[in-house]
């Protein structure tokens, strides 16, 4: 095959197999539409998009951490901690806070919690998995033991007002189905993080650290600073996700989100990020989340009996990543043009 041909192929596939993932997604959707024609409807589409909002935002934070060569399991705790605490504070202070105040408060809390992670990891060079496993317990404990454990149904204005806003509404069948307005901030955040990772030196630094921390130091990146900042950013994103979650569910429940960490990490890795660090893209992550949401939100439509649904989710996940893994292997086959190419690990 010709060099240009392969490079065009590679371009299609994307640096992290985004292409393949997109293809899998399309195939899946087609298959599901064949099984049940109702599947391909504005209603389902909107529902899936809506249910992807929070996972996507959370995944963005995870993505940054994973690219830097770390693993964060504390983000659900940070998310719900920030959002719930904000709600409690607002109720306590009696002011019916608007969007700005709500966001400021919760994002600051998220940033602080992220700072705890980043500080420990950067200062003591600790394994990220362990640190975040630790802080996760601490945050969760403090939240429920000292902030509160009640299910709160009355939200501050800043959250209330968006809970039921919709972006656009289309008539489908009898009634109207509408797309929730909060997809907008989700998409904006995706663009922002994408910019942060691709077009800022900080972003390059994150990739550099993930590739080879020592080499990053040698080219002059201040590894510590970047690490601290990136965990703060991750904390802020988590907090944002938490606020979106509370807004969407129209209630603040301190037990929510906890326990979803592995699924989110899976979505990010599915999106082409390497758990060993140095690789990953926002686009891939979005596709990864979308794929998992499509799977989760279509089983009833597919008429799969409840008892079999977990199995189905697992199977689809394995098949999805399997196809991807195989195609990734293919792409790493060597091409000879009388120039040596070392096959990657």
């Amino acid at each position, binding site marked *: 095959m010709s060099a240009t041909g392969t490079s065009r192929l590679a371009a299609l596939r994307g640096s992290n197999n985004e292409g393949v993932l997109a293809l899998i997604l399309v195939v899946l959707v087609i298959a599901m539409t064949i099984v049940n024609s109702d599947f391909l409807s504005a209603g389902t589409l909107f529902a899936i998009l809506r249910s992807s909002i929070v996972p996507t935002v959370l995944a963005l934070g995870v993505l940054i951490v994973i690219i830097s*060569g*770390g*693993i964060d*399991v504390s983000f659900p705790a940070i998310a719900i901690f920030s959002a719930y605490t904000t709600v409690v504070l607002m109720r306590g202070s009696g002011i019916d806070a608007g969007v700005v105040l709500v966001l400021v408060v919760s994002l600051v809390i998220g940033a602080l919690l992220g700072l705890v992670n980043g500080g*420990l*990891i950067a200062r*003591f*060079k*600790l*394994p*990220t*998995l*362990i*640190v975040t*496993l*630790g*802080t*996760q*317990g*601490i945050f*969760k*404990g*403090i939240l*429920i*033991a000292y902030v509160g454990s009640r299910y709160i149904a009355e939200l501050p204005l800043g959250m209330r007002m968006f809970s039921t806003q919709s972006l656009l509404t289309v008539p489908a069948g009898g009634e109207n189905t509408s797309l929730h307005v909060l997809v907008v901030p989700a998409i904006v955040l995706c663009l922002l993080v994408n910019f942060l990772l691709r077009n800022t030196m900080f972003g390059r630094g994150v990739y550099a650290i993930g590739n*080879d*921390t*020592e080499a990053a130091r040698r080219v002059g990146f201040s590894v510590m600073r970047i*690490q601290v900042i990136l965990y703060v950013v991750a904390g802020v994103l988590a907090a944002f996700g938490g606020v979106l979650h509370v807004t969407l569910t129209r209630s603040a429940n301190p037990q929510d989100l906890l326990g979803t960490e*592995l*699924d989110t*990490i*899976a979505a990010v*890795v*599915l999106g082409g990020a390497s*758990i*060993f*660090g140095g690789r990953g893209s926002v686009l891939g992550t979005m596709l990864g989340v979308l794929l998992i949401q499509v799977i989760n939100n279509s089983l009833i439509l597919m008429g799969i009996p409840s*008892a*079999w*649904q*977990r*199995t*189905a*989710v*697992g*199977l689809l*996940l*394995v098949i999805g*990543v*399997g196809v991807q*893994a*195989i195609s*990734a*292997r293919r792409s790493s086959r060597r091409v000879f043009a009388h120039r040596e190419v070392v096959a990657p*690990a």
Partner: protein
Amino acid sequence: MLVLTLLAFAIFTAVKPRVFLNPLNLQNIAIAAPEIGLLALAIMLTMLTGGIDLSIVAIANLTAITISSLYTAIGATDAGLAESLAPVIVLVGLAVGAVGGYVNGLLVSRVGITPILATLGTMQIFNGIAITWTGGKTLYGAPAMLTTFGRTVIAGIPALFLVLVAAAIVLAVVINKTALGATIRLQGANPVAARFSGIRTDRTLTSTYVMSGLLAGLAGILFVSRNPTASADYGSSYVLLVIVIAVLGGTNPNGGFGTVLGVILATLTLQIVSSGFNIIRLSSYDYAIAQGAILIIIMVIDQVTSGRRRRTVPKISDALATPTES
């Protein structure tokens, strides 16, 4: 790590000697530890190759369910027969564990799926199978052989604990004294070099996950031995816990380094700490806080002390790669 275990022990002994040193309490620790310890060993083994196995708890439950339902099925027709077939039934259960592990092994080695994804998928598959199989109900009934074994105490030490000890010893031998063990560690240290050194990567990975499946199966047997029930959702809280234990025990999640002893000690430490806190009437959330704090403090101490030994830290998580396994 040993220091730590003793420390934890000492503290609680000091705080509430009557209750804590109560043989009953010590036995409790020794009864709860084994199933967790086995699962932690399984995770540690897969981490040695730079992977992870999230499906172990699901596998353990499948084993438990297999044993319980086989027993009750045969028992329905002929109770005596069921009892006499107990050993066979247990072996079948163990086999289920091995098969589960084999599936993981194939996905990771042949198909080449990232372990965390492969096993997250199979975790749901196995768990789903369990739910379909049991219809979500908790099965009741297990061979008397197992239940009596579960209650047996030899020289003040619960038989269950001896199982863990035995398993640990066997695993330690496999890891440190066999070619397979060596290849597992090398595989984790540098997969490419492993390939170029003639190590059969596929075979190594497959056997690793089969072994982890077997350990999980053994844990499943302990489940039913502790109480003659089997359900799809038992032990779900163990997944994160055993990861904590493995890493706390000095296993490097990036592969290559980890020790059986470290994991066992870490298991005991956490058990001692948890029952200790329970005794001093700490709420489960205060406990969550304490556990997290302890975890981090230990790592910091370990880092500060070992920091002098190891200068350069290529990857952040290598910080705890202390080559003590050989």
